[in-house]
């Protein structure tokens, strides 16, 4: 087929319209979310002392941290779904949860600690955390990758990593309501490890499936 002929067939298909990447990503995440919530409801559930916990600023801080990961990751992943997009000028958004955690760790250090530092860091739920966050992330990660496939990222592995970050951020938001370890040291250690794992999976799968 010569190029003029190909162009003719492309022009004939001009009327075909598809939704924007943001709309597809939103739909895919809404379809995936019930699966993650099902895992949460079946195996974890909200911690029983949640009403008391809500009076603890470090409990609330966990949600600020996880959402400050998930929401910027969604924004940056949509930005990167455009072929000409660069990371430059956008990367700092992903440092928001890091900054929040640093502030939280600092303020906890200034208070009279209820427990020694190692106990706060190790907590009681580190293993559950390392399994639960990745497990609840997987449906969301699949949804995010499906949605981002609709885009045209110039670096598929990077876009996949962003899909990992956003799904880990959303899964960690669910998990935070279950976990009784509220110390920012615990969050900085175990949530981060779980997130890194999901991000690595996202990057590996993304480098395959996000090529266009």
């Amino acid at each position, binding site marked *: *087929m*010569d*190029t003029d*002929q190909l*162009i003719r*067939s492309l*022009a004939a*298909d001009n009327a075909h319209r598809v939704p924007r990447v943001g709309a597809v990503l939103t739909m895919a995440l809404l379809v995936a979310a019930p699966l993650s919530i099902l895992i949460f409801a079946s195996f974890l559930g909200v911690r029983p002392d949640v009403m008391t916990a809500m009076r603890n600023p470090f409990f609330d801080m966990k949600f600020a941290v996880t959402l400050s990961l998930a929401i910027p990751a969604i924004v940056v992943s949509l930005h990167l779904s455009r072929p000409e997009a660069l990371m430059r000028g956008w990367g700092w958004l992903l440092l928001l949860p890091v900054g929040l955690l640093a502030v939280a760790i600092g303020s906890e250090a200034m208070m009279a600690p209820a427990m020694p530092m190692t106990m706060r860091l190790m907590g009681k739920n580190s293993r559950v955390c390392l399994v639960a966050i990745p497990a609840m992330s997987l449906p969301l990660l699949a949804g995010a990758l499906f949605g981002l496939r609709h885009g*045209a990222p110039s670096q598929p592995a990077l876009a996949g990593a962003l899909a990992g970050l956003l799904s880990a951020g959303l899964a960690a938001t669910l998990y935070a309501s279950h976990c009784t370890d509220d110390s920012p040291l615990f969050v900085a250690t175990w949530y981060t490890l779980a997130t890194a794992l999901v991000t690595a999976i996202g990057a590996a799968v993304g480098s395959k499936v996000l090529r266009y």
Partner: protein
Amino acid sequence: MRGREDEWTGLMRSAMAGDDAAYHRLLKAVTPVLRAAARRGLARAGQPPDQAEDIVQEILLAVHLKRHTWDSEAPFAPWLFAIARNKLIDALRRRGRRVFVNIDDFAETLPGEAPQETASASEVAAQLGTLPQRQRDVLQSIAVESASIKDTASKYSMTEGAVRVALHRGLAALTAKLRDH
């Protein structure tokens, strides 16, 4: 150069608003620029330039299927060149080379370069043969025989909607086959 790129942006805006003729004109206008850049990329990688047309066709297909990622407020050329660069790197990698393509390869193309009208390529044609019968018939009719959607519909006793669906699916399948083969 500026004028040319502004013209492309204007054509693409009209195309997205439903003007098929503007879209056709735009694709025709960018093709020589893409072809020259593909040739240069191949030459630099020590590859014969006769594969340039395959790369041009792959770029055009990607442009078509990803045009919803273009922001109509943004200029068209950087978006186009980013896709072209991506496809050129892919194509060179597939041929066993790791090459870094400079975005200026596209931007610096002189307007007068490579006025060649059209050229055929082997890869799209080869993959066309692997498509389901109906998609192949529709693509053949519209691309090669330059029949309209309406004429194609009556020729194969299909509805116009079915022709449109087969055409789009055929183009999407071609793109996927080219990417993964």
